[in-house]
């Protein structure tokens, strides 16, 4: 019974196993990146970047149809271009990163939608907008796995400068020149993971497994290491539970994953150990010292 509900779908169907593998890889890479995005107040920036990827993927699509390689490369190029341009603009001018990014992403989103709707069918548009985690071929799976691996390795390399750059950028500038490269590398990782999210969840929900787990983590830990752990676990849980729900119901897989993550988020907002809204209703006695 429990086996039928929770394990059998993956044991019996290959597409479910592939979807689960994709969800796991996505969660491992995206969740830690999401935590940093949130801590730097860049959650919406991630969303903006997700849209910025669209024209690149669309141009790849325009040139060679639904070709994974072309769309990935196109998406990476567009994403990096917008990330670097807005990063450079905000470092050189008074404009904050979010506002300079907003201008770039609006332009590229308009461009992307134009290209897809001029050239493609409605099915193509749906695929681009919502992804298709239940139709993972070998290539796509490999791309997602490689991207997740690269993310974890690079994050390990830039971790210390990135943390210090977040908490005390002035200090980092006085002891090291690593701040700017770490920042740019981080933006690169954001793009890489958005491309991942783009393949699995589509452009509209690409950031889902970045931002929601990070939001969840904030309610359960006061330490960045703990937050990253919790974010990864909740992303994994959302991926698995969402796929199961989708399998047993008519809910499409991508939205199911995001809805599960949203439900966990809602519970965390209410009952979270760190400033959950309903916590004050169950006060623990205050301590001696």
């Amino acid at each position, binding site marked *: 019974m429990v086996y039928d509900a929770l394990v059998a779908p993956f044991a019996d169907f290959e597409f479910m196993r592939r979807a689960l593998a994709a969800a796991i890889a996505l969660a491992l890479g995206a969740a830690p990146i999401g935590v940093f995005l949130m*801590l730097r107040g860049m959650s919406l920036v991630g969303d903006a970047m997700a849209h910025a990827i669209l024209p690149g993927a669309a141009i790849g699509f325009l040139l060679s149809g639904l070709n994974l390689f072309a769309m990935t490369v196109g998406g990476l190029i567009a994403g990096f271009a917008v990330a670097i341009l807005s990063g450079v603009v905000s470092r050189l001018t008074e404009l904050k990163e979010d506002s300079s990014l907003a201008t770039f992403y609006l332009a590229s989103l308009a461009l992307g939608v134009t290209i897809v709707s001029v050239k493609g069918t409605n099915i193509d548009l749906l695929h681009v907008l919502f992804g298709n985690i239940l139709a993972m071929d070998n290539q796509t799976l490999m791309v997602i796995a490689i991207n997740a691996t690269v993310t974890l390795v690079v994050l390990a*390399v*830039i971790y*210390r*400068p990135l*943390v*210090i750059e*977040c*908490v*005390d*950028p*002035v*200090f*980092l*500038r*006085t*002891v*090291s020149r*690593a701040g700017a490269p*770490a920042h740019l590398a981080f933006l690169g990782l954001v793009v890489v993971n958005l491309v991942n999210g783009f393949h699995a969840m589509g452009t509209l929900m690409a950031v889902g497994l970045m931002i929601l787990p990070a939001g969840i983590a904030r309610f359960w*830990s*006061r*330490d*960045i290491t*703990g*937050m990253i752990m919790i974010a990864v676990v909740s992303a994994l849980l959302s991926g698995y539970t969402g796929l199961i729900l989708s399998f047993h119901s008519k809910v499409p897989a991508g939205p199911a994953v995001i809805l599960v993550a949203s439900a966990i988020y809602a519970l965390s907002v209410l009952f979270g150990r760190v400033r959950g809204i309903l916590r004050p209703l169950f006060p623990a006695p205050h301590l001696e010292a």
Partner: protein
Amino acid sequence: MVDPADGAGCTVGNGACGHRRTLGHRIADDRAMVAQLQFRDVTLGYERHPAVHHLTGEIASGAMLAVVGPNGAGKSTLFRGIVGILKPLAGSIVFGGLDVRDIAYLPQSAEIDRSFPISVFDFTSSGLWRATGAFGRLGSRECRRIVEALAAVGLNGFENRPIGTLSGGQMQRMLFARVLLQDAGVIILDEPFNAIDAKTAADLLALVRRWHEEKRTVLAALHDMDLVRANFPETLLLARGAVAWGPTAQALTADNLSRARQMCEAFDDGAAACAAQVSPRAA
């Protein structure tokens, strides 16, 4: 080591901007004393408006210098210039055999994201950056140094607290612990005793005096004149330009202080280009 010819000798007029300010320290009898920091007619500012205007002078190695002046006098700007966060609009700051990374800089704590989820221990450990770099391991020796530094500022037992839970004074103690770990030859403190209680200020001041005894060069921006008079042998009275620079007793005269207070804080949008820069005279 300082040559204060007389009271007036170490003061400068608050004249027009073409007026060149060449006063400051002159090393007289003690030839062994090295200049660690030299300001060569340096102008620092924002959007072409000078916040520190034509400052010339030098700071000897091992000096303990108070930088005093009204709000907006350019104290923080001067420090930013020294640590290289702000590029001079004109002139230069020269280090005598010193890498910028030998400077420990304690900015006003408002610049730290206190909501960031990081523990006191992890935050303080960044003071070991020169030893560990971006990748170096924190071994047991490093960990012991961090715990000792926290103990030295009276923060025993705070290691695992998130920095967001610290009070203002505790925060300042933690920043001092990080400066301790940096083990730097030059230490720059920007208003280190602001808004903290007398006990904390006294504890931290003891650390500053210890650094001075260890022959480190200490620069501190301060507002408490009694504290400056009691502890700092030399003072730079800053009001965009140097109003006075020399032994504290001679720099902090009532006359000098009132002249510093008269400095106009606002930038003048219609200000003309500074004549000294347009046609620099030979020194």
